[in-house]
């Protein structure tokens, strides 16, 4: 321990954390797993490697493009008043498609509210995701249809559900794994720490996938931690790794390895996907109040789709026809989503009483009946006019 008695006290948390941040950035650069550079160059990593067919590479590209298009359409639909809110994944396509395509059918996903790309990989109909943002339900899909749990809004809470589910997999002796998504902001929640503890103690087959998109609404990651987030895992007794979250190949490779690790009884692992939220937090947010245009521009040069485009083109793995076909497919997807949203009916008034309980509840029955009678009283009155 260095002697410190001679030093003067320095009390400013701000100074401290920026120092911590500088250290973090340095550490981040050295520790980042990357397989495809922003310039579209394939590079190797000593621990993680990947070998994909041209079809698979084009498939990843297609996933990212369609996801981005779906996301853009949802943003438009929000502006047009068809949705009340939208949480865009713009910029995070590689993190989500890379990790999502690493999953087996029997694996299970616990998303936040932003995992539209992962939902896509699971085969969830994209329009299903829009109900809650339109305000016609709170999610409403069957998680077991695609092993994709409901979106969770209370930050961090789904990491415990994921851990419990994984404990169940272990009990069943099954051969699958769980992936829990959460953000850099979420890393501060007690629930996330408790999920680390439980998963470590029970050696549960769960992969914690933290998309560090640098921001929790207006707060930069330095408000949550002063060291890189992937390091959090070690103190709980399992490994953590930071991956270039805008590199779909690296995200795929690292997540595959982590899932395989989990499936083979080696317990949990934390992946920090270092990425960037290119858009606003949600359509209600105004990021110009808290971050600079330069920052966004810097990250534009690291765009996840662009770099794979460059790679595919340079390597002659995709031609104009492929890109044009994908453009048409995107337009069709957008149209389908648009039409579906516009056709989405408002729920029946009495629907609000449904599904509070599975086995019924006398008070709900009473209130439903009273409300129905109240509603009926108006119809009668109007008919009387």
């Amino acid at each position, binding site marked *: 321990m260095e002697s410190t008695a001679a030093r003067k006290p320095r009390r400013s948390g701000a100074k401290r954390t920026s120092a911590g941040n500088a250290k973090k950035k340095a550490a981040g650069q050295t520790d980042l797993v990357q397989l495809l550079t922003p310039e579209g160059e394939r590079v190797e990593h000593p621990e993680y490697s990947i070998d994909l067919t041209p079809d698979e590479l084009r498939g990843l590209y297609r996933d990212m493009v369609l996801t981005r298009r779906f996301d853009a359409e949802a943003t438009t639909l929000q502006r047009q008043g068809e949705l009340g809110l939208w949480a865009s994944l713009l910029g995070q396509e590689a993190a989500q498609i890379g990790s999502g395509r690493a999953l087996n059918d029997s694996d299970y996903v616990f998303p936040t509210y932003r995992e539209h790309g992962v939902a896509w990989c699971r085969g969830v109909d994209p329009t299903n995701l829009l109900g809650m943002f339109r305000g016609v339900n709170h999610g409403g899909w069957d998680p077991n249809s695609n092993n994709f749990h409901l979106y969770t809004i209370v930050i961090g*809470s789904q990491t415990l559900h994921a851990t419990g589910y994984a404990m169940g*997999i272990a009990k069943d002796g099954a051969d699958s794994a769980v992936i829990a998504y959460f953000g850099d902001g979420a890393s501060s929640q007690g629930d996330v720490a408790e999920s680390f503890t439980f998963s470590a103690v029970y050696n549960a087959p769960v992969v914690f996938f933290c998309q560090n998109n640098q921001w929790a609404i207006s707060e930069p990651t330095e408000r949550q931690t002063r060291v890189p987030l992937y390091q959090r895992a070690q103190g709980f007794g399992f490994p953590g790794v930071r991956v270039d979250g805008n590199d779909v190949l690296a995200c795929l490779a690292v997540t595959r390895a982590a899932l395989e690790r989990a499936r083979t009884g080696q317990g949990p692992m934390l992946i920090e996907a270092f990425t960037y939220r290119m858009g606003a937090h949600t359509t209600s947010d105004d990021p110009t109040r808290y971050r600079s245009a330069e920052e966004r521009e810097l990250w534009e040069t690291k765009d996840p789709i662009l770099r794979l485009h460059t790679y595919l083109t340079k390597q002659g793995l995709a031609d104009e026809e492929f890109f044009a076909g994908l453009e048409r497919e995107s337009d069709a997807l957008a149209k389908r989503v648009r039409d579906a949203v516009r056709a989405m009916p408002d729920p029946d008034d009495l629907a609000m009483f449904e599904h509070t309980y599975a086995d019924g509840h006398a008070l709900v029955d009473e209130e439903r009946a009273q409300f129905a009678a109240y509603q009926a009283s108006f119809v009668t009155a109007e008919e009387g006019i």
Partner: protein
Amino acid sequence: MAAEKMSLSKAINASLRTALENDPKVLIMGEDVGKLGGVFRVTDGLQKDFGEDRVIDTPLAESGIVGTAIGLALRGYRPVVEIQFDGFVFPAYDQIVTQLAKMHARSLGKVKMPVVIRIPYGGGIGAVEHHSESPEALFAHVAGLKVISPSNASDAYWMLQQAIGSDDPVIYFEPKRRYHDKSEVDTSAIPAPLHAARVARPGTDLTLAAYGPMVKVCLDAAAAAAEEGKSVEVVDLRSMSPIDFDTLQGSVERTGRLVVVHEAPVFLGTGAEIAARITERCFYHLEAPVLRVGGFHAPYPPSRLEDEYLPGLDRVLDAVDRALAY
């Protein structure tokens, strides 16, 4: 198994054992539920007989316990969670209120949440802070939860069976100061519906409504009142969400007077809802306003004061007298 006299805590233990035997998906989770058998020995012997995989000592983190129980339920398990004492349920409150209670509705009914949360509650055992509280109203107000409390060994056994069998989350409040009270349990009987109230003692002049630990106090009060020539009916509500207002209304229509008794603070306690709703239902039958006897608007006091804080025979009879005086 035929009828047998057993303590309330033994009845819970027997009920858990039956559930573990009948359904391999049933799990017990909590702090110290394993080798120790829980701080009240309610889970005594279960880990020994069913293994660490089904009777699970958890890390010391209530949010984690309930949160992982939710995940286990999503995987098809039926976790029965123990919270060690009433005052320690609050770290889990977020998971209970925002997740457990709402998951079924969030999925439009596609997901079920068969999770039971057992909470020893109430005072009267001379304990330190946080070990004697009655937070049931804080759960009953929340839609999506069912909230129940047995007052005797038979109900303890059967209501827990029914709670574990339910596809909804159930908060099962155990009257810890009645753990040692013994009564008959017939494990082959056909139980009453889970949320039905029970007339525990018939009477004609006034109705006392209570649940859990206060049922005995009310029965004692009714006996004392009888000696003074007052006929007091006692209704054991058994369920705080939903509340069986039909049974209560029937009673009050006969007696014309109602006193509700619980350990929880009166202000916004379950007695408030009962008073409001029964007054609405029985407006022309009530000879007196519904009176309430309960805890005060103060933190649960140090144990040397709990006899004053808790509703006892005298305070209940005082309310009975006041109601009869109208």
